[in-house]
């Protein structure tokens, strides 16, 4: 790899570029246009991995690894985590609310892209010198040498930045609990005092199809009770209402019951008839 070409690149790299580049672009587009956040995240992860490969191809071995470890490993996981926290299936409709926003955005994007390309195009970047001697002592050592000499101050700053970020994240997300946690007894008394839901909340999952956390339990009159679904799901609007099908099931059941009863009824009458007859016969 130290013989990294100075004026042009190997056909292998070219091939790799064209293939992976296409994938990367597609991944990016998917990131933007996927309905669900999870999908976007996954596509993004893909793109990033490809970028990592490109870094390696460009002789930035350290960065390539870091890209995979930090980005795809850490950051993207963080994303997914948050997505889960906020709601996997909360698909926000891509329908635009602000008038003309989308078209403006696309227009700007297009123009911007064209401009960038044009800019790069008329910047005369035909010949360039590779990282041969720069990476001679090894890429990581080279980076280290620079970071701890020229960029040491910036480096320290990034340290400070990271710490700040960590603290900030804690401050933002951590909810300080001010009052003492209530004991069960207290909770119970409170419930009694409020006078609603003396019994514990109804359990979900009546007429379960699958793990029915998201299915509201039915009240005696067959109407679903939201209370039986966990708050998070309710907030995500992931409550499945099964009251109607439940009622249908009920009807079907009764129907079948009817039939059976019908048969038995006729049987009985027969018997009674017979019995009558038998009664007559006994005279």
């Amino acid at each position, binding site marked *: 790899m130290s013989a990294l070409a100075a004026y042009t690149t190997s056909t292998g790299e070219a091939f790799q570029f064209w293939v992976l580049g296409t994938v990367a672009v597609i991944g990016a587009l998917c990131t933007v246009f996927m309905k669900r956040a999870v999908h976007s995240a996954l596509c993004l992860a893909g793109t990033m991995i490809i970028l990592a490969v490109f870094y390696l191809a460009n002789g930035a071995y350290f960065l390539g690894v870091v890209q995979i470890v930090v980005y795809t490993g850490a950051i993207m996981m963080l994303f997914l985590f948050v997505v889960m926290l906020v709601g996997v299936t909360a698909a926000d409709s891509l329908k635009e609310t602000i008038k003309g926003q989308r078209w403006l955005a696309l227009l700007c994007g297009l123009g911007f892209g064209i401009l960038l390309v044009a*800019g790069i195009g008329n910047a005369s970047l035909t010949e360039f010198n590779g990282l041969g001697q720069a990476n001679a002592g090894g890429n990581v050592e080279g980076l280290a040498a620079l970071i701890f000499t020229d960029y040491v101050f910036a480096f320290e700053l990034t340290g400070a930045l990271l710490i700040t970020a960590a603290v900030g994240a804690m401050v933002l997300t951590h909810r300080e609990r001010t009052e003492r946690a209530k004991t069960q007894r207290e909770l119970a008394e409170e419930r009694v005092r409020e006078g609603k839901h003396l019994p514990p909340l109804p359990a979900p999952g009546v007429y379960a199809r699958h793990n029915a956390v998201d299915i509201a339990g039915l009240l005696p009159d067959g109407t679903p009770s939201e209370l039986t679904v966990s708050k998070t799901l309710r907030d995500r609007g992931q409550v499945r209402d099964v009251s109607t099908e439940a009622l249908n099931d009920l009807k079907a059941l009764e129907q079948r019951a009817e039939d059976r009863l019908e048969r038995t009824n006729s049987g009985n009458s027969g018997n009674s008839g017979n019995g009558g007859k038998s009664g007559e016969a006994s005279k």
Partner: protein
Amino acid sequence: MENLIALLVAAPLLGAAVLLCGGRRLDAVGHLIGTALAAASFVIGVVLFADMVGKDAEHREMGQHLFSWIPVEGFQADVAFQLDQLSMTFVLLITGVGSLIHVYSIGYMEHDERRRRFFGYLNLFLAAMLLLVLADNYLLLYVGWEGVGLASYLLIGFWQHKPSAATAAKKAFLVNRVGDVGLSIAIMLMFTTFGTFAFGPVLEATGETGEGKLTAIALMLLLAACGKSAQVPLQSWLGDAMEGPTPVSALIHAATMVTAGVYLIVRSADIFNGSPDAQLVTTVVGAVTLLFGAIVGCAKDDIKKALAGSTMSQIGYMVLAAGLGPIGYVFAIMHLVTHGFFKAGLFLGAGSVMHGMNDEVDMRKYGGLRKYMPVTFVTFGLGYLAIIGFPGLSGFFSKDKIIEAAFAKGGTEGWILGSVALLGAAITAYYMTRVMLMTFFGEERWRSRPTASPAEPSVEPAAEHHGEHAEPHPHESPRVMTIPMIVLAVGSVFGGAYFSLGDRFIHWLEPVTEHAHGHPPISALTVTAATVAVMVIGVGLAWLQYGRGPVPVAAPRGSLLTRAARRDLLQDDFNHVVLVRGGEHLTRSLVYVDHTLVDGVVNGTAATMGGLSGRLRRVQNGYARSYAVSMFGGAAILIAVTLLMRAV
């Protein structure tokens, strides 16, 4: 000796300061302090006079330089006094008559709770007037000039609770201000022409500049004089000025302040001599005014306003004389002095009459008062004889000389001016006789006063105290009032004779205002005879009209002229329509313009901006993403621009 000059001014100024800042605790003694300081100033004047007479005619002028007032590059104004015969004459007149009137006021203002302040104002006036006549440059004179204006403003409006008084005061000040514009422009002209405005240098340098400049300066000075001395066209304020207390009318609006204009002209003799046109204008103004005032005087039923008219016309005589140049200056001053005596006397008499008549001023409600207030009658009568120029009394000498001089101007002008002066003398005799008869003779119209409302609403405040219909009890005024009247009467009897015997006055003033003997086309004797004749005619006419028959209490409608004269010959109406109304409309419209146009332009732009921003505001829909779009677009545009720049 020189150092005394400042004291002349300082004494009354001190009085004014003390009395005006003194507060209530001085109420008890205020009038005494005021009078004392006025008298002190008079005494100083006499001392200086004695000293001056002691020297020979050439070296009588003396000066005192106090301090440099406005020292600016190329512009030196000093506070310096100059005392020559002319100033001395005025000093004596002012302080003398002034002191007398102070004394008189003690009695007259006895019942006024603001008497202290009144005396303070009087002292202020004395100080300003003395400053005016003692100044050795025009700028300092200007200070005195405005000072007396202020004093007269304060004194005319002394009874401020009367809107009429307040208005009259304002009017007086404003009209005077118009005159002051003239004076200040004149001073500027002097400065640009001569580089100075001290009497000495300016008057010596008159020869070195063109007649045009001199005419301009002289006319501006004349304008100032018209304002102060109530000459046409700026005479309108004098009549209303009678709203002030009578002593004020006597001192300021008869004896001293109104004559300041004459002083100014005589003082600037060299300038006027240098410009015949200006002199002609001056004489014309004088002549017109003396007729104007006389005619107005004939028609007024308010005794003070009648006297005011006569004052106007008498000053007209003086201005006329002053306009005649060297042949007239001395006589102008002489008439000024004698007039100071008898007119002050007359006013004090009128005041005394009003004092006894519940401050009634309408002569139609007088009559037959001679046996109730003998002293007043006698003194008033002497003043009357003096003013109509009864042979032997002071008015006779001075006025006769002026008429002579008028004829002596020569040419048709001489004839016209002379005959006008003669006519004026006749009318003077007529209206003064009218006043005399209506006041002291005839049946007592004040008894069983009819309910007919008075022609002129009674002005003095006490009228409110005594009920409108309470019958007055005419009585002689206290001695403190009568004595000054007596003194003035004496002056008005013998003054003229004393001055003119052996041309004392001429010799006295000659060093200051050179005197030339005029040569009337007709003998002086003829003129004198004519004067006496017309005087007799005037008296006769008046007697025919008011002496024989009873005088109607309600003023008859009268001829067109009479009615016009009652309204100051419509001059006030003119002012009202043209200046007041016009001015009001102008200001109103300007206020409107300022609000709509000047301000409107600005507010208009502001409004358009507001509308614009209102439209722009729509873009700010608060969605972060749309802001992001604009940001992104902006970035794109920037890149485009940079690329283009690099491409170009």
